[in-house]
């Protein structure tokens, strides 16, 4: 700048520069300027000295001396300080501008309250949902399991079948693993055939049923779990056939013993025998959430590795801890050699064929794909949120063209205006994220308290620092994403055009309209995909409930009436106990049928190998059947469906032929194409088939039922559990009290804390599926609402912009109906494009979630048709309001407003 006066009077212009334009000095430019400054300084001094009478050479030497450093060094120092200066100034300007932008954004957003509130609500719901799903995934997939060095833990399944007898190992197997040095630093196990409520605790004359897990002596030390009170089991306590110590879970200690700090050393009466409490486990150790989702585990007892326990067969679920540096692959290779030797050492016992998987993989194996599905769903929801917000902002940006034009005319560069828009959107998303965080806190808290849901690690779901980081990242990203469209559009804005055009009547540029239409179409398409996804899951869920259940759970109550051990010890005494119990129960008014069984459907996992009589297979390959011991009348009490033969009868006792009732799958497997009635199956002994019932699904509804068989209790002495199943017209809590009163003479300690209905049992079994289905349906509903909102926004905006055109047409004689119909038709066109794209997307989504479906094909026409009908209806509804408004336009007003 050569004009000195303008330079020196540059204060105002400097201010304007600071306000609207960031100086973009490159480092090279700054360095060159610093050099110029230095040279001018030197030359000015030389001139000054020469003017005082020095020779030019002397003056130059003196000027260099006064510089105070060799010229090269001085140049470098000055360049550095100039660069530092620019950096500082730029940072400060940036912060000042940011402050201005934020203040301005807050002011404008505050003025447009309706917009701000709806935008905040949409973002909050989107981010709340995303953060909640993230927290679930984080707890299940990312956060370490609550044990010491959990990555070294390995689940050692003895086979690949889902049946527990095929997952578990025998005592001699774990003993063999202890004796040989392997990749495992230690191997521990727990008794996998515990039954929820197996332990009866009698205190102060009242009985409650508790769940006790027998564990090997090293179980807690192997996991790295340290009792908060007392200690773990000693080797002495874990030997012999009878044990008399227990360790309490933290929750039982709190619940039943009022957190008594001096509880260790006291004695309680469990199943009629005294047990000493030796320890209390820490509150963060939740056996159920890791190993048995949906089960509340109350206490632990020692499982001695004795000869007697070995003879029980496969009973132990094994968990190993790898040595430092060892890998699962290495251990697998090792066991491939070792296992056949272990099997060969005891030819009379079960085979050992270990399959290793990481503990985490074992815990999440069934829900991994469901989680991935949820993550995608929540991603789609977030995209819809962004599209919607983008649209809202676009509409707003068009309405604010004049304001922007004025600011541009005042000297604001395009960059600065774009930044202003992005600041607004990021501010919106930050505000939405704050509300979303509250929603996520509520959501995760609710999920972590879902005790009856059969999903692992749910109690661990919470908002942690990772989730917070996720929310912040998501909010920033979303803010930039949905701010992008209006900002881009803004940068195309022709300033003078906008200034010239009068506010409302101005025609919108075509780019803007196309962008908005594209956004709404993608919203509709994404909503379609979510609707189809959730629709298929809902249909699967309903199918699951009414197809697979082949008993009638309505009005059936179940409760444990296990007699004392001395009754169980004698076949005759047990038989008369059961007869009496059933007689007393049936005498209660309202009771229609009653029976006993050793386990309810959908949970009890006990299997034996079976074969047809005369069949010669290698012992190993015998099919595995789920076994039930039951009294006669179970078919009636449970509402099972007899397809051939008869139910078990009171005469099926030790004096008569050994018989069995089987399910259809077992009949087809052992005697394909033949009548199974009268055939003999080799089970515990040779048993003649007397009846065939429909499959009852003893594991879970969405897995194949497998082979099932029912053995009359009078013909077998293996009855660890006595579950009374009663069909009646009386509500279960009332009924349970009547039963307890009726049975008092023979069973004084019937506990009422674990009374359940078969409906409860079914609910718990389908709870994971219901959980995912509900979540996904919620997302789909939200997406649909957003699509509705989006369509409504675009249509009403278009209507507002076409007021004049509509006014003209009405003045020319168009009726209200023609106007309405045209707008609805436009809306439908929009919806149809969205639906076409959405159907294609849905088809892909449906294929991706195929593994989650049950009894529904991924191209289920009903679901797709329903989706199309729903989306069309939503489009019509959201187009109707603006259409009606348009048809009420008064032509005279429409003209005047231009």
């Amino acid at each position, binding site marked *: *700048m*050569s004009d*000195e006066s303008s*330079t*020196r009077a*540059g204060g105002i212009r*400097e201010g304007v520069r600071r306000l609207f334009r960031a100086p973009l000095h490159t480092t090279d430019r700054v360095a060159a*300027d610093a050099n*110029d*400054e*230095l040279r*001018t*300084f*030197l*030359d*000015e*001094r030389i*001139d*000054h000295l020469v003017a005082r009478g020095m020779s030019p050479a002397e003056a130059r030497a003196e*000027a260099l001396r*006064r*510089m*105070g*450093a060799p010229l090269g*060094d*001085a140049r470098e*120092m*000055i360049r550095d*300080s*100039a660069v*530092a*200066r620019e950096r*500082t*100034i730029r940072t*400060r300007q940036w912060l000042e501008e940011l402050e201005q932008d934020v203040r301005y954004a807050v002011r404008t957003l505050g003025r447009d309250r309706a917009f701000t509130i709806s935008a905040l609500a949409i973002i909050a719901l989107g981010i709340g949902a995303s953060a909640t799903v993230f927290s679930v995934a984080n707890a299940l997939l990312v956060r370490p399991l609550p044990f010491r060095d959990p990555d070294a833990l390995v689940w050692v399944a003895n086979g690949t079948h889902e049946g527990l007898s095929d997952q578990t190992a025998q005592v001699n197997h774990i003993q063999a693993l202890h004796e040989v040095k392997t990749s495992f630093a230690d191997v521990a196990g727990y008794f996998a055939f515990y039954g929820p409520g197996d332990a009866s605790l009698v205190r102060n004359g009242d009985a409650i049923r508790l769940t006790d897990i027998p564990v090997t002596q090293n179980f807690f030390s192997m996991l790295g779990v340290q009792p908060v009170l007392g200690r773990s089991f000693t080797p002495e306590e874990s030997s012999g056939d009878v044990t008399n110590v227990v360790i309490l879970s933290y929750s039982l200690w709190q619940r039943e013993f009022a957190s008594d700090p001096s509880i260790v050393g006291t004695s309680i009466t469990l199943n009629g025998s005294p047990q000493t409490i030796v320890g209390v486990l820490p509150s963060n150790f939740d056996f159920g959430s890791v190993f048995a989702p949906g089960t509340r585990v109350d206490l632990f007892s020692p499982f001695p590795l004795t000869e007697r326990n070995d003879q029980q067969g496969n009973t132990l679920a094994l968990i190993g801890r790898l040595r430092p540096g060892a890998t699962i692959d290495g251990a697998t290779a090792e066991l491939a050699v070792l296992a056949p030797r272990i099997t060969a050492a005891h030819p009379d016992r079960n085979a050992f064929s270990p399959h290793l998987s990481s503990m985490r993989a074992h815990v999440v194996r069934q829900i991994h794909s469901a989680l991935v599905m949820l993550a995608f769903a929540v991603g789609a929801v977030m995209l819809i949120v962004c599209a919607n917000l983008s649209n809202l902002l676009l509409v707003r940006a068009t309405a604010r063209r004049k304001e922007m034009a004025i600011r541009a005319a005042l000297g604001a560069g395009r960059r600065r205006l774009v930044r202003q828009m992005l600041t607004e959107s990021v501010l919106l998303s930050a505000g939405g994220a704050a509300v979303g965080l509250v929603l996520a806190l509520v959501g995760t808290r609710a999920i972590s308290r879902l005790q009856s849901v059969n999903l692992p690690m749910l109690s661990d779901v919470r908002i942690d620092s990772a989730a917070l980081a996720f929310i912040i990242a998501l909010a920033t990203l979303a803010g930039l994403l949905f701010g992008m469209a209006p900002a881009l559009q803004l940068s195309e804005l022709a300033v003078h055009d906008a200034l010239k055009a009068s506010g409302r009547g101005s025609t919108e540029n075509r780019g803007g309209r196309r962008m908005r239409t594209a956004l709404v179409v993608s919203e509709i398409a994404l909503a379609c995909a979510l609707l189809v996804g959730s629709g298929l899951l809902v249909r699967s869920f309903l199918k699951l409930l009414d197809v697979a259940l082949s008993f009638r759970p309505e009005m059936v109550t179940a409760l444990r009436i296990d007699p004392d051990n001395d009754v169980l010890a004698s076949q005759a005494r047990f038989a008369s106990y059961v007869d009496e119990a059933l007689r007393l129960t049936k005498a209660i008014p309202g009771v229609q049928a009653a029976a006993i069984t050793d386990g309810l459907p959908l949970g009890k996992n006990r299997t034996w190998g079976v074969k047809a009589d005369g069949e010669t297979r290698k012992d190993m390959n015998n099919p595995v059947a789920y076994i039930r011991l039951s009294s006669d009348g179970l078919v009636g009490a449970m509402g099972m469906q007899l397809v051939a033969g008869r139910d078990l009868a009171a005469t099926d006792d030790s004096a008569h032929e050994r018989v069995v009732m089987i399910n259809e799958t077992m009949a087809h497997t052992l005697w394909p194409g033949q009548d199974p009635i009268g055939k003999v199956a080799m089970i515990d002994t040779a048993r003649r088939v007397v009846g065939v019932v429909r499959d009852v699904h003893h594991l879970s509804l969405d897995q194949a039922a497998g082979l099932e068989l029912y053995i009359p209790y009078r013909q077998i002495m293996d009855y660890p559990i006595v579950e009374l199943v009663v069909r009646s017209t009386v509500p279960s809590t009332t009924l349970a009290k009547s039963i307890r009163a009726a049975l008092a003479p023979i069973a004084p300690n019937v506990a009422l804390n674990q009374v359940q209905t078969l409906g409860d049992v079914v609910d718990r079994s389908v709870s994971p599926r219901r959980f995912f289905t509900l979540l996904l349906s919620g997302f789909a509903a939200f997406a649909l609402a957003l699509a509705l909102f989006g369509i409504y926004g675009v249509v009403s905006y278009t209507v507002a912009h076409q007021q004049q055109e509509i006014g003209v047409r009405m003045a020319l004689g168009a009726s209200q109906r023609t106007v309405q119909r045209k707008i609805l038709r436009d809306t439908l066109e929009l919806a149809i494009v969205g639906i076409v794209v959405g159907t294609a997307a849905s088809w892909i989504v449906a294929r991706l979630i195929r593994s989650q479906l049950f009894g529904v094909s991924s191209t289920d026409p009903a679901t797709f048709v329903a989706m199309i009908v729903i989306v069309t209806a939503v489009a019509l509804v959201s187009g109707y309001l603006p259409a009606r408004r348009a048809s009420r336009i008064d032509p005279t007003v429409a003209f005047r407003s231009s």
Partner: protein
Amino acid sequence: MALLKGTLDVLVLKTLSWGPMHGFEITAWLEQRSSGRLDVTDAALIQALHRLEARGLLSAEWGESKNGRRARYYKLTSTGKAHLRIETAALMDYVGALTTVLTTRSAHE
């Protein structure tokens, strides 16, 4: 005479309170007013100018010197003026205190 730490900044600000100047003009003004007694190297002065500008006490514009060279002109900002007022008062106070102490005659003198 070497400068006490921090006084160079105040001297520069004081110089510029007479109006915008480029680097050498500032030095020349200071040398003239102090009769050459203040010992500031030129490199240090230019760095001080950059530092003061970064702190927002000075602003700068390119212009042309009286001898026709491209020169960077510095002027006080309003923050700079306020800073000068405060620092001058503090420094005067300090100098006054020093003077009082150092000029007090001891009893046996």
